[in-house]
């Protein structure tokens, strides 16, 4: 047979397409590999170069380069490639997810308080505690609470603290003075609310007494302080507590500010505050240097308000982690690099350049650092807050999408949605996410 009809050709092509489709679909039963790398492969890269993925927290690229130069000088056989992996922690997490699929993984990656757990839960990060021990390095000098933040069960730790922060209460001293307020932060949020009319009058129209991140940014982090100060919180371990009385009260306070125009939420709250659009900003210690540089007013810094003198706030920021999928030789280089980047001298350099907290106990005892903090009390405040910090709620940092989910609900509350029903829905969606995405992976 030498001829083929058009119909015959189309039938053949269709058959090939269906066969190809079926072949592609093969393996969907039960569980299926996503071709996203194994836990023990090479993960690309080589053992003479350390690839460091960072978002350069608080515009720290120059500082990171300076620290890297020090590391390379001390370890001439190793070169470090600093990679711009995103403009924030979430973008770094997304890039790392893509690398897990593509197989070209970094040696060291910045992981935030929100992003590290999902990687650890899915066995994508190496146990840094074991790597420290295996390479004759110690974890004992890390600030205990910051080191403990990267452990969730067993003895494994999945990152070492790097750019760690707490929220601070920033205020515009010029507006404070004009409003006739004492030069201090409020004792609690109710006192702050009572100051709002005076602050509003001093600011003038179109400006707000307090500026907070919006829900697409870090409102879910800063609002945690407010919720805690009213005796509420996001969750008790894995059980959501959004609809409990204290959290609802905090939500009502937030909504009250919005209704009276005392509150402005923003995707770039630091810039808005620096531009004089508000009297108060609740934001990371890592923003100190930026606000000092951009703000054209006297900057006051205080502990976050809390009732009855019970002061507490969450830690935040990021640590440095090592992918599980790279070779043992690369892991050895990586742990050596992280240890250097977070040693006493490096963390002093980094914290003085950015406002983040020193992560080593010996750094806090260092005489030069003590002198620096005495000279710059606004930087010292973050350190004095440290003993009062509380671990963050699982609902925010451990449940996948927790921060975005809470931020969305808080945005709705700011816009006027009923607080109780919004938080009830949040309880339900958080529980559903935990049941489907976390519970099956936790050890019994």
């Amino acid at each position, binding site marked *: 047979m030498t001829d083929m009809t058009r119909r015959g050709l189309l039938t053949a092509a269709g058959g090939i397409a269906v066969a190809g489709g079926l072949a592609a679909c093969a393996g969907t039963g039960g569980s299926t590999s996503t071709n996203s790398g194994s836990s023990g492969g090479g993960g690309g890269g080589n053992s003479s170069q350390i690839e460091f993925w960072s978002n350069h927290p608080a515009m720290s690229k120059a500082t990171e380069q300076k620290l890297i130069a020090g590391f390379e000088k001390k370890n001439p056989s190793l070169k470090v490639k600093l990679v711009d992996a995103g403009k924030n922690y979430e973008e770094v997490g997304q890039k790392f997810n893509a690398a897990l699929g593509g197989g070209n993984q970094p040696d060291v990656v910045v992981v935030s308080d929100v992003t590290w757990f999902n990687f650890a839960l899915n066995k994508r990060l190496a146990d840094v505690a074991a790597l420290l021990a295996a390479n004759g390095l110690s974890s004992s000098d890390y600030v205990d609470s910051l080191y403990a933040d990267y452990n969730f069960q067993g003895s494994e730790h999945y990152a070492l603290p790097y750019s760690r922060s707490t929220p601070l209460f920033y205020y515009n001293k010029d507006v404070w003075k004009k409003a006739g307020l004492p030069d201090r932060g409020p004792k609690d949020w109710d006192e702050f609310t009572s100051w709002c009319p005076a602050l509003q009058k001093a600011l003038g129209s179109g400006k707000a007494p307090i500026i907070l991140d919006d*829900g697409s940014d870090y409102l879910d982090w800063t609002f945690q302080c407010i919720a805690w100060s009213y005796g509420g919180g996001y969750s008790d371990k894995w059980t959501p507590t959004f609809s409990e009385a204290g959290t609802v009260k905090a939500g009502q306070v937030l909504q009250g500010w919005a209704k009276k125009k005392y509150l402005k939420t923003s995707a770039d709250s630091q810039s808005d505050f620096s531009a004089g659009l508000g009297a108060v900003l609740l934001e990371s210690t890592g923003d100190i240097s930026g606000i000092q540089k951009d703000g054209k007013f006297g900057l006051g810094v205080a502990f976050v308000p809390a009732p009855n003198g019970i002061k507490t706030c969450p830690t935040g920021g990021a640590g440095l982690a090592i992918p599980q999928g790279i070779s043992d030789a690369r892991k050895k280089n990586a742990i050596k690099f992280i240890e250097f980047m977070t040693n006493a001298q490096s963390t002093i350099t980094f914290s003085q350049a950015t406002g983040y907290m020193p992560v080593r106990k010996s750094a806090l005892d260092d005489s030069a650092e003590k002198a620096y903090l005495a000279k710059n009390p606004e930087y010292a405040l973050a350190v004095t807050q440290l003993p009062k910090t509380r671990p963050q709620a699982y609902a925010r940092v451990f449940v996948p999408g927790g921060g975005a989910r809470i931020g969305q609900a808080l945005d709705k509350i700011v816009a006027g949605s009923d607080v109780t029903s919004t938080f009830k829905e949040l309880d339900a969606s958080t529980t559903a996410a935990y049941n489907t995405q976390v519970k099956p992976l936790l050890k019994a």
Partner: protein
Amino acid sequence: MTSAAVPPAPVGDPPRRRGRPIGEWTLAGLLLLPNLVLLVVFTYRPLIDNVRLSFTSWNISAPVAHYIGTANYVRWWHDPNSHQVLINTVVFTVATVGVSMVLGLALAMLLDQKLRGRNIVRSVLFAPFVISGAAVGIAFQFVFDPNFGLIRDLAQRVGVTVPDFYQQPHWALFMVTVTYIWKNLGYTFVIYLAALQGRRADLDEAAEIDGASPWRRFTKVLLPQLRPTTYFLSITVLLNSVQVFDIINVMTRGGPQGYGTATMVYQVYKETFVNSQAGYGATIATIMFVFLLVVTLVQVRLMDRGRQT
């Protein structure tokens, strides 16, 4: 004398030759092969993979995905965020397709006239189309900024209060829609302009001699001639509009209030990369694919019917 037997005259058409020589098919196959390979590897295989993943609970960080049947589809159907996203997608798409085609045609008709400086104006109108969406998004943040924006400044001069475009979902959706239309208007304008320049001017002149009004000449003479272009634009503009991501990501990150300006493409991104639920993201992508396929088929069918009439 016996006459020689005469073969019977053929009845009806001669038998049709069935098919082409296999050599021609082989040559055609060889010529098509490189493109087909690229299409299979980079389009159809990922498409099939996406459909496969839509039936799993894959966490994007996990090395394995677990099959969960149609649970993701059921979840999408009942998810209030999905309902809002679907409404956003429809509103955004209808507005961008409708407005950019009407404005594009109007501008094309205007600049088809012999006006001084029309080439400069044509270039200016087309320029935004070649600028990246991210750059346009950043520029328009300064236009809509509630504190320092151009719109606020202009409105204040005439005593009008402007809303906070970033905090109210319907105003935020309006903002990204206007921005998208501004960026892509040049495309519809150029295609319509080319169609206008290729039309039969004699028909218009004949209608004018017959005393037809300008509106009647527009609806009965010009628009029918532009029908193929209109169908083409309606399909391409719709496909581009539904897939917008850059402007929304830069201006609102899908917010306010979580999904205030999120369209289906943005929801795919958010579920997959922000919430780590890649299986659910694949489900939304599959639903969007089916939705677009149906809409495109309907448009093609209408176009065919239009040609026949």
